[in-house]
């Protein structure tokens, strides 16, 4: 990444990208890993599918640079485009599910949802992996954005284009469903 990029914010880079494509490269470099992780976690894409969706996302970001709304965080806008591209990819294709969650992610979700009290820690990661897979797609995405991507309610609202109140309801329902599936599948404490 060129040194000239380091001190710049995402929003500044987005604006400079219109004049110099090197800045656009810096911007994409900042987001490549984050968005790849998000696509795999939220939509269960294989590495190849996630890369295809990500490249389409990057191209859309470039084409729409002039439409970037400066009242949003650049990251929210980039995640929104990735979200839209994923939904459209899922509609067109019927990709295989790749559950690539690592133990750290799963433990973080379990701990944030306060599930560890109800599960033995040694089994919690494996079980959380199965529960996440059986969650409805919008619930899963809301949990990922909140607990693994550390997004605020406002940012999630800007990403999935739903009111903040709806986001709060979605997360609360996702947590309830997570706990419900956990209780149904594994009982209260084993």
């Amino acid at each position: 990444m060129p040194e000239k990029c380091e001190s710049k914010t995402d929003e500044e880079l987005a604006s400079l990208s219109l004049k110099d494509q090197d800045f656009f490269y810096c911007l994409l470099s900042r987001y490549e890993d984050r968005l790849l992780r998000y696509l795999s976690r939220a939509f269960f894409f294989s590495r190849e599918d996630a890369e295809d969706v990500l490249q389409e996302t990057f191209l859309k970001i470039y084409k729409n640079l002039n439409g970037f709304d400066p009242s949003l965080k650049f990251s929210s806008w980039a995640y929104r485009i990735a979200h839209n591209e994923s939904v459209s990819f899922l509609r067109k294709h019927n990709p295989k599910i790749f559950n690539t969650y690592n133990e750290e992610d799963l433990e973080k979700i379990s701990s944030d949802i306060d599930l560890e009290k109800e599960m033995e820690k040694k089994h919690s990661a494996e079980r959380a992996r199965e529960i996440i897979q059986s969650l409805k797609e919008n619930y899963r995405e809301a949990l990922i954005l909140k607990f693994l991507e550390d997004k605020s309610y406002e940012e999630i609202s800007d990403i999935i284009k739903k009111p903040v109140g709806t986001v709060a309801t979605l997360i609360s329902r996702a947590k309830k469903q997570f706990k419900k599936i956990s209780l149904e599948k594994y009982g209260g404490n084993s």
Partner: protein
Amino acid sequence: MAEIAKKTLEKIKEEKITPEPKWKFFLTDWAYWGFFAFTIVFGSLSFSVIFFVLRESDWDIYRYLHHGPWSFTLELLPYFWIASLSFFLFLAIINFHHTKHGYRFTPTLIVGLSILLSALLGASLSLIKAGEVLDDALFENYPTYGKIAGFHRTVWNDPENGLLNGLVISKEDGTVKIIDRNKKVWEVNCSSLCEETDIVKIGVPARFIGEQTGSNSFSAEEIRPGKIGAPPLPLKIIRPKLKMLIN
């Protein structure tokens, strides 16, 4: 090295991809606002006709039509305009949702806001009689409209059930002649009623409640004023008759 970023940049250079121009985004956003405003105006016009029909309808004449008060009220409600209002509200909500920050508002808030805006604008349009003019124009030019949404007008053209309406063309010793919207001339016997009230005047529409006594004769028991242009006599019928009487 960010591989996908690199590949994307190469593709952009190879295919000479350029960012969409700023005006395109500006135009799209304003188009949604424009459509939103357009649907609110049309919703307001529907509201304005609804206000007009509700205000001008005679809710008490169900007695003459062998109807119960509730079934008559249900028949008189302007369903066509209620459906039209709902349709435009639906479009308004969709357009608002697609504006730049429309998604931040809950559907309930958008529905409430759209109804409020349409109602306020509809009430303002009522003041300049927009609803009346629209209802009048549609009724006169599209017979199908009359069948679907003209009950508040046609209900007074029912002499068999004791309701008659028309423009007074002569008045003599307790008998008046009127011409109805089908251009049929009626002789209405109103005895002393016509003298006791100043409703019956030549060149002015009037509504009569009573009994049909012959193929073109009617006996009135009650007389109500018929407003010029108001249902059931539209302006298009009244204007030429008035001209004829004046000449």
